[in-house]
């Protein structure tokens, strides 16, 4: 529905914005904005999401290219991880005298 309205009314496409706030950290999702193309999206993201020096790097992705898992399937989708408690360090019963491990 939205994609067709988009073309019909010449609406600028929607972009998701990710910002790395400081070297060493991941890019984090900051929000979205409308822009005519990638260059404009980055400039707008800088204007709106980094007014207080919150970013050293900006990624923009057209929202239509984000693919997401289905939350309704969460139970079965993540089920394999649910009973593998041996992935956690606390599963292993080791003597207290043991150090550096």
């Amino acid at each position, binding site marked *: 529905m939205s994609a067709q*309205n988009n073309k019909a009314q010449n609406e600028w496409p929607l972009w998701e914005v990710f910002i790395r706030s400081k070297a060493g950290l991941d890019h984090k999702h900051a*929000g979205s*904005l409308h822009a005519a*193309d990638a260059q*404009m999206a980055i400039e707008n993201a800088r204007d709106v999401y980094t*007014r207080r020096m919150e970013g050293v790097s900006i990624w923009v992705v057209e929202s239509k290219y984000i693919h997401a898992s289905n939350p309704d399937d969460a139970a079965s989708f993540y089920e394999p991880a649910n009973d593998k408690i041996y992935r956690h360090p606390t599963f292993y019963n080791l003597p207290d005298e043991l150090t550096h491990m």
Partner: protein
Amino acid sequence: MPMTAQSFEQHFQDKIDNEITIEPRDWMPDDYRKTLIRQISQHAHSEIVGMLPEGNWITRAPSLRRKAVLLAKVQDEGGHGLYLYSAAETLGITRDEMLAQLHSGKAKYSSIFNYPTLTWADMGAVGWLVDGAAIMNQVPLCRTSYGPYARAMVRVCKEESFHQRQGFEIMMRLAEGTEVQKKMAQDALNRWWWPSIMMFGPKDDDSAHSAQSMAWRIKRFSNDELRQKFIDVTVEQAKLIGLTIPDPDLKWNEEKGHYDFGEINWDEFWNVVKGNGPCNKERLTARQNAWNNGAWVREAALAYSEKRKQRAEKQAVDAA
């Protein structure tokens, strides 16, 4: 085990009751979605329309510092509008649809912005009282049940505190200035006090949407609770700078531990909500003009980006 309509509702309410945040692709009742679209989009419209009464004084700020600060505040409000439109768009409405609702008069925005800013002191009163009331409302919204709205509010609240401080500072400087300056500050307070406490909405008993909003944890505190808290803290702030709240019935109630205050003019409240405030027409016209007069910019940007894309493709072909 097949999920019935009833069990979807129950599962949803269980999440709400357990403070589990609802995210965009989660199942939600139609009315929850509709209510949020209405509330978030109207909140966004309020930010954008809110740029107008303060934008009015940018060219007439009394010093360069005050001009730069006011510009920064108004820029922030534009940004807040964006965060909120973005949050609303996750619920299935487009930006163009929301703007069409605003421009047609179908969507509302906060009534406070239908009052005029008549003097420089109004910049002080607006920052101190209007942003102050907004903060009182927005801090609890940082824990609202819908994820994108809550996260937008966290960002907004971080930026909002400088807004209130700059407003109070303006009032403080005027109140300790010449007789004319002090009078201008008091006059602004006289005009903005009652509209500011009206920002918290009708009394709880007269508020139709509140009960369902609270059950869904969209709203965390009642109108009356927030209004009382705002009055209690603001009265003390006014005392500090020697200004008088224009309410003869304002009185500390030792038993309740709160200030008793006078009756709000509910006729004025509903009249402004209905569209008969001093600046309703002016505000809406300004937004309609901005949209219509900016059409060529939107079209040109799309045309230019298409041109840029074709040029890049041609260069790639030529280089190959």
